[in-house]
Structure formats: structure tokens, C-alpha cells
């Protein structure tokens, strides 16, 4: 098979970690190993993995970091989900592009673990900035000041941009998730269904009553089950309300909540008490795999509601459908992609509770109906969720990866920027003839880092600036791309720059400052340094306030954070009173986000207009056009 890699490195938790992603991947391993050597990287404090074949190489993160050179050219696969067990892989994922399997579309909680959960409020604000630009900064400040976080569910604020944009390729389990990621500008997205667990073949639907007997479930009543972690998003309260109404109509049943609950996050016992169904509801707590499947097969049908959705696919749902069980879902997100004849799909809206009641009532009373849906579901899963097919798809995607750069460090959360010592700049000034009519402030202030791979110089004085960039800052001529100011708007950069120097008249941007500045965002890498210098003329007209502090805000609206601001020239002669004709404002900034706000509050012009500037084709590299 030429389209399968001979070796892969996979970042994923493993059993005995109680994590669905671990269970999912461990089922794939034997299929991977048929064609490919597998190295799994786990976190340093991971318990000893269990049930893994000896031909799988397992490295802890520390071991991996010291062996990066040997593994640099091996395709990397990252299984990332919205839980603490995948936090350890983030620094590597964000530094070494690979195939990212996005199990949960919204990774807000995962990001939260790296800052707010550790008490780092400012770090959380920066994370919001990275996702949402200056609007994220505002939100972070408000959350800090007003403490609103507890009042809205994290699902309401998507946080995944850094992980999506760091990936070379992405694999998801639903078209819904794929479309959300494509909307972020990432072009290399593949949909592979969540495989049907081979472990389920051990369990026989015909042993339903035997399984019920094992758990003390009634043999003479319908058993309805909601499986998995008991969370608010599973709309248990609505289910209880519907079932209470069904009970009042004279129908008896047992409702099983087969999973772990955390009462401090969602007090399901209170809802059970409020519904009056204490005698009908069983809460099992955490289940091992054996109990999980048996409870599932003890059921007459499964209620697997999820609202709002984070875009996650449900492994539980795949298992239930694959075992021939009828399932009730909310017709939203990935669940909306299920064939209409394979599940009961309820639209979310004002009539949801009524529709839920009707659906549950029908499923309880009409055995033929629910069995028929279950059979359809089973056939569909067999056709489309075969594990051999899905794992081959994983490997084929991994084989397309091209990134083989070796990481030179063992910690990736920092970046170095190199600068000349001040005296080198002074010495250069003394030994070179300077045109005092030109803009010298940006280099006299020593704001330009040295040693970057490429520099984009935007100015109508590019010849003069290029001479300084090469002679003083040590760049080679081929490293410097020059662009006239007027050409920036139409510039179609094939790749992004780590360093941009802008030397323009203030009037060049005064018509639409943020729109102009957002073009810089388009051509800058994340983390790129920007040195932007404005020559300030007298009598500039603009619809917007373009004083020094307003410009700072506009630069931030364009996705940058201002690090230094200098006004000059620096060489005003203090021994005379001659007024200088040249005033410059120089800002040193860093790109923090691909999100720009084209209508920022400083415009005093109504609502913000956020625009996402990322494009994976451009960001993945390529030749720049001078």
C-alpha cells in the first residue's frame, strides 16, 4: 500500500485513563499495526498503559522531547479533545504541524486548563485575544472585572482557532465539524466516521433479558437509557419531564442514567426529585466497558440528546445504533447528519418538549416502530462505520503530511527575538552617512529584530530602508521583499512574513486606517513582529481620530498588540529652537490574532465587524512575491 505511512507517532491517552478518546484509539491500534509502526506519546504522569500490544512503542512526553530528531520526519497524529487528558500534547501540536483529530469542535475548556483554571486571568485574556482579536481582549477584561464566566456555558464561545490553524491536516467525524473548520480558512479537512467498536461483537442483543437480570432491571417494563457522562447539555430534565407526563398517562417504565454524574456541575438528583420519578430512575455511576455494553443492550431504546452541541460526535451513539438500538437525538450538528430512517431526530425549538413527549410515548408503545428504526441504524453503521475502513482513512491522511522540521528545543511556549545592542546602532550611525530628511526613527529606536528568515518592507523609500535593513541589521538582500505603499492593498502574498517594516505617511492610511492595517495582518505570521512608522504631516483629514493613542487602538483592532510606541525624531538639537519638519510615530507590535475588527469602538460607528484573516494555503508556506 503506497498511500500508507510505514510509521506514525500518535499523541493520545491510553487505558486505564477513563477517557473515550483513549478507548477509541486503543481499538484502532491493531488495525494501524497491520501496516504501520506505531509510537504512542503519553503524558509524563500517565498511569501504566494497559492492554497495549508489545509491538507498540510507548513514549512518555519527556522521552519524546529528547528523541525528536529521530522522529522529526515521521507523520504526527494528535487526538485532541475538550478534556484534561489531552492538554499535555498542546505545546507539540502547536509547534509541529501534523494531522489533528478534532474529537470536540469547541476546545474552550481545554484552553481554560492552560490559564484560567490555574488562576492566570491575564493568560486567559490573551487566549481570548488570540481567538477573537481585540474583541476577545475586551471580553477577557469584562469577564475579569464583572465575573460573568459562571453565567454562560463555555459552549457558547467557540475556542479552537489556535489548534485548527496549527494543524497541517484535520480529521473530524462529521460534515458539521468539517464545515465549521473550513469556515476558519483551513482547506485540508477530512471527514472519517466514528468507527463502530469491535468490542461490541462480544455482546448479544438476544441476551437482553439476561443482562437485565444481572443489573436487577425489570423484565416486564420498557427500559429507556441515556448513556454516558450525565451533563446538563444532555437535556435530562426535558426527558424526565416527558417521562413524567407519560407515567401520568398510565405507562410504567424504567429510565436508566448509565454514566457518571458530578452533582456540583449538574444536580441530576434534584431534577429527578422534581419530576417525581424517584421510583423509575436508576443512576448507575461510572461503568466499566463490560457493564456499559450490557446496560446498552438491556435497553429498549436510547435517548441521546445533546443541546447545545460543541460539534462532538458521540461514540455512544455509534455503538447503540450499531447494536441495533433505536436512538432519539436532537436534530442539530453532527446528529442532524444521521439518515432520517435510522434515528428519531427532533428539531430544537419551542415545541421540542412536546415533540420529545410524543416521540418517547410512541417508542414506548410501538415496538415494531422502534425495532425497525434500530435495524435500519444497524445496517447503516455496518456499511459506513467499519473500523478497518476508518483506520485506513486515518493512515491515508497521515501519509499526506509533509512537515518534517525538527524541533530544536524541549519547551515550546517561548519564542526568541534577537536585537542588536544599542551601542552597535550608535556606532553604525557614527560611521555611515545618514539622510536626515528620511525617516530614521524606526532604526535609531532599535525596534527591528535581527536574524528572521524574511522581512517585508512597505514604504515609498524602500531603497533607503533596504540599505539600512541589510547594512545595519545584517539581512541579506534576498531576505528582504520590498513593496510600495500603494501596492499593499492589492498584494497577494503566497506566504506570511515573520517581520514587517512599514514606513508610510499618516495620510496613506487616514481614509480607512483599520482596513489598511488589516492588510498587514493578512501578510504576517502569527507572532510576527511589526515595526510601523508614520510620518505625521500637518493638516491631515480623516473621518477618524488618528492621534497617537487612537492609532494604538487601531493597530490592536487589526490583530496586533502594541509593545512600544516612540515619537521623534530622537536627534532633535536641544541647543537651538528650530522646529523640526519631520515628526514620526513608531509602533512596535506583535501579531496576536488573525481576527480583525474592521469597525472597532474607536470608530464610534456602531457594532463591531469581525473578520477572520487566516487562509491555510497561504499560511502553510510558499514563495513570496516581491
Amino acid at each position: 500500500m503506497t498511500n500508507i505511512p510505514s510509521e506514525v507517532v500518535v499523541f493520545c491517552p491510553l487505558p486505564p485513563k477513563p477517557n473515550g478518546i483513549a478507548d477509541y484509539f486503543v481499538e484502532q491500534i491493531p488495525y494501524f499495526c497491520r501496516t504501520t509502526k506505531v509510537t504512542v506519546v503519553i503524558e509524563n504522569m500517565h498511569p501504566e498503559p494497559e492492554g497495549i500490544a508489545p509491538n507498540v512503542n510507548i513514549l512518555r512526553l519527556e522521552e519524546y522531547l529528547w528523541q525528536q530528531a529521530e522522529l522529526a520526519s515521521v507523520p504526527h497524529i494528535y487526538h485532541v479533545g475538550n478534556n484534561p487528558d489531552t492538554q499535555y500534547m498542546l505545546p507539540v501540536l502547536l509547534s509541529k504541524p501534523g494531522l489533528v483529530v478534532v474529537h470536540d469542535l469547541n476546545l474552550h475548556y481545554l484552553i481554560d486548563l492552560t490559564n484560567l483554571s490555574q488562576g492566570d486571568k491575564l493568560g486567559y485574556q490573551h487566549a481570548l485575544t488570540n481567538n477573537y482579536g481585540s474583541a476577545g481582549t475586551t471580553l477577557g477584561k469584562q469577564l475579569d472585572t464583572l465575573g460573568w464566566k459562571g453565567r454562560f456555558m463555555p459552549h457558547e464561545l467557540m475556542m479552537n482557532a489556535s489548534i485548527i490553524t496549527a494543524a497541517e491536516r484535520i480529521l473530524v467525524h462529521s460534515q458539521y465539524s468539517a464545515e465549521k473548520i473550513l469556515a476558519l480558512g483551513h482547506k485540508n479537512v477530512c471527514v472519517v466516521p466514528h468507527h463502530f467498536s469491535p468490542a461490541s461483537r462480544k455482546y448479544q442483543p438476544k441476551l437482553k433479558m439476561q443482562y437485565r437480570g444481572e443489573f436487577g432491571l425489570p423484565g416486564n417494563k420498557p427500559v429507556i437509557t441515556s448513556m454516558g457522562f450525565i451533563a446538563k447539555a444532555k437535556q435530562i430534565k426535558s426527558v424526565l419531564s416527558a417521562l413524567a407526563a407519560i407515567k401520568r398517562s398510565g405507562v410504567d417504565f424504567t429510565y436508566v442514567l448509565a454514566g457518571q454524574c458530578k452533582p456540583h456541575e449538574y444536580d441530576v438528583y434534584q431534577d429527578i426529585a422534581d419530576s417525581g420519578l424517584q421510583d423509575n430512575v436508576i443512576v448507575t455511576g461510572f461503568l466499566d466497558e463490560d457493564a456499559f455494553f450490557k446496560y446498552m443492550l438491556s435497553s429498549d431504546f436510547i435517548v441521546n440528546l445533546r443541546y447545545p452541541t460543541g460539534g462532538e460526535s458521540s461514540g455512544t451513539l455509534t455503538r447503540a445504533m450499531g447494536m441495533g438500538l433505536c436512538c432519539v437525538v436532537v436534530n442539530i450538528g453532527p446528529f442532524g447528519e444521521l439518515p432520517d430512517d435510522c434515528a428519531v431526530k427532533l428539531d430544537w425549538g419551542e415545541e421540542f418538549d412536546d415533540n420529545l413527549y410524543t416521540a418517547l410515548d410512541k417508542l414506548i408503545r410501538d415496538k415494531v416502530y422502534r425495532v425497525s428504526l434500530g435495524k435500519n441504524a444497524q445496517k447503516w453503521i455496518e456499511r459506513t462505520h467499519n473500523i478497518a475502513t476508518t483506520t485506513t482513512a486515518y493512515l491515508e491522511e497521515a501519509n499526506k503530511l509533509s512537515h518534517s522540521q525538527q524541533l530544536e528545543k524541549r519547551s515550546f511556549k517561548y519564542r526568541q527575538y534577537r536585537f542588536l545592542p544599542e551601542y552597535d546602532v550608535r556606532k553604525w550611525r557614527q560611521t555611515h552617512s545618514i539622510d536626515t530628511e528620511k525617516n530614521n526613527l524606526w532604526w535609531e529606536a532599535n525596534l527591528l529584530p535581527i536574524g528572521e528568515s524574511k522581512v517585508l518592507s512597505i514604504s515609498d523609500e524602500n531603497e533607503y530602508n533596504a540599505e539600512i535593513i541589510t547594512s545595519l541589521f545584517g539581512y541579506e538582500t534576498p531576505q528582504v521583499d520590498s513593496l510600495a505603499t500603494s501596492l499593499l492593498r492589492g498584494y497577494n502574498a503566497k506566504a506570511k512574513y515573520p517581520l514587517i517594516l512599514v514606513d508610510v505617511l499618516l495620510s496613506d492610511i487616514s481614509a480607512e486606517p483599520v482596513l489598511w492595517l488589516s492588510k498587514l495582518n493578512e501578510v504576517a505570521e502569527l507572532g510576527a513582529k511589526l515595526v510601523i512608522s508614520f510620518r505625521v504631516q500637518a493638516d491631515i483629514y480623516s473621518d477618524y481620530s488618528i492621534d497617537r493613542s487612537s492609532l494604538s487602538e487601531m493597530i490592536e483592532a487589526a490583530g496586533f498588540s502594541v509593545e512600544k510606541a516612540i515619537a521623534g525624531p530622537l536627534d532633535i538639537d536641544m541647543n537651538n529652537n528650530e522646529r523640526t519638519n519631520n515628526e514620526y510615530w513608531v509602533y512596535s507590535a506583535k501579531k496576536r490574532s488573525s481576527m480583525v475588527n474592521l469597525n472597532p469602538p474607536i470608530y464610534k460607528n456602531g457594532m463591531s465587524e469581525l473578520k477572520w484573516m487566516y487562509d491555510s494555503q497561504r499560511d502553510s508556506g510558499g514563495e513570496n512575491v516581491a
Partner: protein
Amino acid sequence: MLPSPSINFSPPIELIRDFHNVNAEILAISAFLRSFITLGDVFLDTVPQSLEAKLANAAGARVSYLMNQPLCDHYGLDYIQSAKSCGVLPVALGGNEIDINVEPRVEAGFEGLAENAETIKVRKLDSYLSGRVNVSWTVFSQLTLDKLTGAKELVQTHRPLFSGIISPECILDVSEWCITNGYHLVDSDLQDIQSVPVSAYCWLVPTKSMLQQAYRYLGKDSGLVKRSLPLVRLIQQSWPELLGANDNLAKKTYDLIANQRTWYYLDSLANIGLDSIETDGENYWRWLGKNGARLFLPLHSEGYFRLSFNFFSLASGLSHATLRCFINGRLMTTYMIEEGTELSVSYFAREAGEVAEILLVSEEACYIDGKFLSCSLSEVTLQWVDS
């Protein structure tokens, strides 16, 4: 007529190396320190807990610690902040002068997005040490020609002693530099060297008289000794001045060699991840957090070492902890620790100058007072083990 070396007699320096190579290195350091007429400033870019630092402090030198650039490159702000808390200056030695700004990345998903940037100034020796009155000794973690080239004025004015690890690729250039500048390039046995098969600790001695003095202190001409001599007798017999003088340097040298170990003050241990030091008045300890702690212990020579860690206590709620110890990226042991456990790990250093990067991480941790804690460390000891 002195007996020739035989199976029963050997030069003392050879014998002390049989116990462990690091003994000879310690003797050389001590001998050179004792050879100074007036000992002034000593500058080291090794980690603060190196043997050179311990002995220089014992000798009464004014010791300044400079930033270890490879560790900064690897670990960024984590290392810089920890090093600065141990008194390390934000200056590194190099052949080209630049200012390095270390800043957090911007991508959500990294910890520490809001940390303050730090600047490390990379300077040539001449510009950093200009104006000093008495520069006695400069120790490099990696000694390369560009660092020496940047010490022209220093060499002219102070003629300091240099030492450090030299790689096989650099030895020729450094050797030529020594010839040009009138320095003697020797190893820790004070033998001239022209080439090294692997990285080795070397000395650049400014004057013949200093070399001869060190030679004398090391007992190079003192004759052979019985191979069967126990260690204590050997050092008493062979190096009476170095290890028997009534001063701190001799006492420290004796302590290191006689006990074949060194231990580390917790408050000046360069590390990443240890909490601040705590005490009950009698005991001192530092907690490991959720991500564990990374220690940097210079091993100084090839050979077998035993690293020992004493775990004082566990976080409230834990009766035991599953601790993993990595050294230079290898998982050395997984051990169940309880309060008071001493964990010892053997390690073989393959070449001189190796720094043992130790990661201690616990599987279990408890959330207490706003942070995750697992176990506390009260003692770290490095023993050199018989070859």
C-alpha cells in the same frame, strides 16, 4: 630510585581516578584555586550548583553566575526566572553580541501567555568584564574559540585562568589560540593536550608558574603510592596541602573527595517547577507541582553516579505517590514513594560536562490552596560511585 609503576604501585592521580574521574577534576580545581596569589573575581556560565562554584566560594572568590545559554534556548522564561532567583545574571557569554528577548508565544493552548518577557544580553568577555579590577578565572560550560577571541583585552590586562568543556571539533582552534597568547592548554591531570577523542574538561593556564604551582599541589612529582591504599589514606598521603590545610577550600575539597558526594542547597538549586522553599524551623522542603520539577545537576566527568532524593512529605490526602524519574530523557525508575522515602537512581555519564536534567513527576496530585501539589523534596545528593 623511585619504584616504577607496577600492579602494586601507581601515581596517586591515577589511583584517585580509579575511584572516580570526578575526584581528579576536583583536585585540579582546588589546585588551581590555591595557585592564585590573590583570588579575585570568578565568572561561571555553568549552572550555579557546579563544583567549580562550590570550590570557588570556599576559596573566598567573588563568584558571579552568568546565564547558561543552551538551557535558556531550551526552556526559555522558565529557566531564566529560576536562574535569576538563584543569583544568575541575565548575561551570557558569546562571540557575537546580541540582546535576546525571550517572550511567550501568542497561541491559545500554551501556558504562561501573560508572562513578562526577559532579555538576555550576550556579550563578549571584553565588553562585559571591562573595568574589572581582578578577573581571576572564567569557567565556560562550552569553551569555543569565538569566546576567547572576544577576550583580547581581558587576556592582556588580567591574564585570567580559563576552563571548560572543549569538543573535539574546537580543540585545534583553541590550541592555536593558546600558543598565540602564551597559554598552556592542559587537561585535569595537567598534561598538555593537542586533541581529544570526546569532549573533555580542559584548562587554559596563563603562566608557567601557575601551572607549576598546580603541578606541585597535585603531587605530580611525589612518587607512587600503593594501589591498596583506602581513599582516606590516599588523600592524606598524597595531597596534604590541598586537603589538609586549615582553610575552607581544603575542608571543602576534603569533604567532597572523602565522602564521594556533594549535596545541594534547595534554595539555590536551579530548577523548573519547584515551589518556594518552606521550613518548620528544622527541616526545609520544596513542593513539586502537577507537572513535576526539573533539576539541572552538572556531573562534571564521565562515570557512574548515584542521585538521591529525599521526599519529606506528601500532599494532604495522599498516602503514597507514584513517582517517575527521568534523566536526560530516559525513564530511569517508577517508584512508589511515601513520606520520608529516599529514592536513589544510578546513572552513567558518558562524557565530561554532561548536565543531568532530572524530571521528577508524580502520577498523583491534590488541589490545595489554589495549586496542585504532590510531594515535597528535602534533599538532593549526588554521589560518585566506584567505577
